[in-house]
């Protein structure tokens, strides 16, 4: 039998000294990471939700627009960062590139879920909204958005988790964020550095996922099948 005592004690010691040494940097990079993903999500939502609504009004646009968003989604992230690098205004600041690229990745789930969520509202309910004399805007605000809210939030949640993950790659073009640690750790074969980037990133994703999941369940339409 191996006594766990001394070995794990040493590990804790090592971790502690590492943390003490790097705590300021962990905090800065976490905040940077939050800033990158947060602003990208804000842009993606500001673009994706209205665009998704527009697609429900002009059905013919849905296929081409969703296809484009799908294609953006399939570009390998490192390649997308690379493509954006030589662009004039964007290329000047790495964080701009990162935010634009992350917005692109976050767009599809938000756009798709907005479109699908609104299209999925029961036709009889939409019909009654028309029959009661709702204007298009009233129907959107009073019926379609509330009934699609949980689906739209689910899209936001997917987008957030994706963006938090992909943002670690933004460090490759010098945009900062927790990817800094990961890239440095890989370069210097130091797993402590890799973990110092990966663990906070995972916690961020988990936290955002939980928060949005809770919001999503709050937005569920009251009904017998409520979970």
């Amino acid at each position, binding site marked *: 039998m191996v006594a766990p005592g001394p070995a794990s004690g040493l590990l804790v010691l090592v971790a502690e000294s590492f943390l003490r040494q790097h705590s300021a940097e962990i905090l800065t990079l976490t905040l940077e990471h939050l800033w990158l993903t947060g602003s990208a999500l804000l842009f993606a939502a500001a673009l994706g939700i209205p665009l998704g609504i527009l697609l429900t009004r002009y059905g013919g646009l849905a296929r081409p627009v969703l296809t484009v968003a799908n294609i953006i989604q399939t570009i390998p992230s490192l390649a997308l960062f690379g493509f954006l690098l030589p662009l004039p205004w964007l290329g000047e600041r790495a964080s701009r590139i990162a935010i634009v690229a992350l917005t692109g990745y976050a767009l599809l789930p938000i756009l798709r879920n907005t479109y699908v969520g609104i299209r999925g509202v029961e036709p*009889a309910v939409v019909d009654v909204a028309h*029959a*009661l*004399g*709702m204007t298009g805007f009233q129907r959107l605000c009073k019926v379609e958005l509330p*009934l699609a809210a949980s689906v739209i939030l689910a899209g936001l949640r997917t987008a957030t988790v994706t963006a938090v993950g992909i943002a670690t790659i933004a460090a490759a073009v010098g945009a900062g964020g927790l990817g800094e640690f990961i890239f440095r750790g890989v370069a210097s074969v130091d797993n402590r550095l890799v973990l110092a980037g990966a663990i906070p990133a995972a916690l961020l994703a988990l936290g955002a996922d939980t928060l949005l999941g809770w919001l999503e369940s709050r937005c569920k339409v*009251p009904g017998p099948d409520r979970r």
Partner: protein
Amino acid sequence: MTEAAPLPRPTLREACEVHHLAAAIEFAGVSLQLPDGRSLLENITLALEAGTVTALLGRSGSGKTTLLRMVNRLAVPTSGTVRVHGDDVAGKSVVQLRRGMGYVIQDTGLFPHMTVARNVTMVPELAGRSRRGFAEQVRQLLTAVGLEPSRFSQRYPHQLSGGQRQRVGLARALAAEPPILLMDEPFGALDPLTRAEMQDMLRGLLARLRDRGEAKTVLLVTHDLDEAMYLADRIVLLAEGRVEANLAPGDFLHAREHAVAEYVCAFHRGERRVGAS
């Protein structure tokens, strides 16, 4: 006082215009060609007198719902005109047109994310009326359709039985005090006992409104001949895209027209079989 001059006899045209005024809803040569070329409605001409209940009968797929939806422009005829209180509906703002008539459908017509109270006051809310009077209005409307306000106003639609939901749907349709009610198989999904209660409630409600001088013009689509006989002043039978009959309930049962006789024969078959054996 001078002696009143005798009223001039109205010309035929004037008489027709007077008739127009009395017709709350009027279909004039209304046809609907489906995209596949099939003709669903063919040259329908029909006038619903103000303050009366007209039941619209016919096979499934005969175009009853479509005809009803032409009144509030949820459907648009390919030719012909639909007039409401003498005005062509095509020339009106759809929003105003629709807020001016109640609409009740078979099922799921309530907004699932809103309480009964908010569902009921939706049309006044849309019109931007002050919410201050809403509580009192909810109380009156729910009482009118036989629901106790204190028990039901804060419930959600899924917490109601089918009959209660239809009562709320009717209360909502009445909220803006529209002169016209469009009802598409409102009780179609209910069991016979609940349906009978609903028919009594509706009949009583319409009679009370009539006594108050607020008679509603009702277009009621139904598959239930008995319901039509119980509630309607006129029964219209739609078949093959045409109006096959437009009769008072008393005449409908004994009409000779093939389509009507066939329709009537489709009812009470069990009764006849048991009676015959």
